[in-house]
């Protein structure tokens, strides 16, 4: 019996620790929810290299893409956007390709080889990290973090 007592005591402390963890896990996260969902929107568009993005009409993300001589600019760029807000991809290309937007559901646009920009607009309804990919060149243009 003497060995049993401290043992049960230790079990209890361990259990209490688990309970605390569980409480901490649930409690702290719910308090974070409100602040975290609002905060990232502000610094979002500062990541974008193009200044023109911020001057376009409110809450619309414009991504400029140039394809010239097999080179894509930008590649693997990072953007932030809000769900359900329009995203415009403006492409200048000297070659035909397919633009794939890996959202749920997916979007596909045909890029033509021509002078001057071609614009493709879509919205993403389900939050997530959405890759925009040039299919034939097999390059990821950008990843849009849709909150």
């Amino acid at each position, binding site marked *: 019996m003497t060995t049993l007592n401290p043992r049960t005591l*230790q079990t209890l*402390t361990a259990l209490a620790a*688990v309970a605390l963890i569980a409480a901490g896990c649930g409690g*702290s*996260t719910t308090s974070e929810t409100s602040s975290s969902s609002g905060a990232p929107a502000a610094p979002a568009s500062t990541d974008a290299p193009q200044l023109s993005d911020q001057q376009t009409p409110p809450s619309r993300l414009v991504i400029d893409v140039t394809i010239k001589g097999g080179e894509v600019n930008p590649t693997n760029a990072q953007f932030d956007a809000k769900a359900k807000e329009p995203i415009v991809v403006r492409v200048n290309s000297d070659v035909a390709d397919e633009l794939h937007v890996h*959202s749920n559901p997916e979007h596909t646009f045909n890029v033509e080889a021509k002078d001057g920009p071609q614009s493709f607009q879509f919205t993403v309804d389900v939050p997530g*990290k959405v890759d925009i*990919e040039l299919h034939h060149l097999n390059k990821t243009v950008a990843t849009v973090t849709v909150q």
Partner: protein
Amino acid sequence: MIEGRSTAVLAHGLGGSADLPIPYTYALIGAAWALTFTFAVVALAWRKPRFDPAKPGRPLPARLTTVVDAPATRWAVAVAALLFAAWVAVAAVFGPQNGQNPLLGVFYVLLWVGLVALSLAIGPVWRALSPVRTLYRLTPLSRRPPPNQYPRRLGYWPAALGLFAFVWLELASPDPGSLAAVKIWLVLYLAVTLAGTFVFGGRWCARADPFEVYGVAVSRLSPLRRNPDGRIAIGNPFDHLTSMPVRPGTVAVLAVLLGSTAFDSFSAMPQWRNFVDAHSGGLPLGAVAIRTVGLLVFASVVGVTFHLAARATGGVDGATRRRLPGLMAHSLIPIVIGYVFAHYLTYLVERGQQTVIQLADPLGPGWNALGLGDAQVSYVLSMHPSVLATLKVCFVLGGHIAGVIAAHDRALWLLPKRHQVTGQLAMMLVMVGYTFTGLYLLFGG
């Protein structure tokens, strides 16, 4: 190749978006708790081992065991699984050769992630479902002793190789979304597993079938188990966990699973993608080579750090020290499960729905065979990012805590009294390292 080209999709060959990164604060809170709990376990928790693989669980009604073990049940389940496999095969060959084909979802979601969830919930189901085992049982060969003994020293190495082949296809191959590639992989898997089974009998499935080894390893954390008398019982998963047999290659299997999941997060980082683009020389094979090396490095780092940490203790002789990594390996299982769920839960829930809807109409003419043709995928997790982030941190943390507890308890069994605290320090640090890395990758770097 042409069919692959027209359907090529990025991550995991399934297309669609990936999960949002978890917020910074979540990662910090998770990391802080991981550290606190690890310290608490080493310093304060029990000093005598308390998990015993021989301790029987609380037996469930005998009728359950009778029903589960009845040949009629076994055959019904096996034949149903075989028919399902045939259904998927028909869809794969005759269905639409694009992203609408259910094969990709069945392969990457239902098989790879669904099997983990099912094995954790009710036990090693792949043994009952495996089409290879069913086919083998249908031949007269299965009623004779196998022509050869499975070499003991191979252990789980063939399965580790098979699992690596799977994650290679998913994360390093030129086009994981290519139906042709998945079909080739599956045909090779069937050929190797069937041939091995005919030569070595059912033991080949138990040791070398990647899905069975994965499922059985995961099922060690299931609350449901069998008592020594064969009766189905419910008990402490930690008692069950220690029953994981020690065989060559056990650590390799778990290292491939944990390393590949981490590599999956890592390979979405823009820095890594830029690196691959810059060094592949524009050749598809160059990118494949770099990703293959990356995958190998991740699996090796997990395997080697775990191996060294398990051996880093004083007061044991050389023979014992060599056995330590295998004897500690079961403590990696909860970490693998926690990280797999943190990483693939959205896939299981959302792409799983999509796959089932696609399966209802395998050939694409709008059959609506299961009455699901009009069903829409409910993006229940993606639409609630903070719930999802909380779940992810809790999975990683839960896996870490369970791993640390299992490792602590086993260390008390194995290590001499004087080295029980210092001897497990390296292991605890390595586990904290895994968890920090996991949270960092989920946070997105």
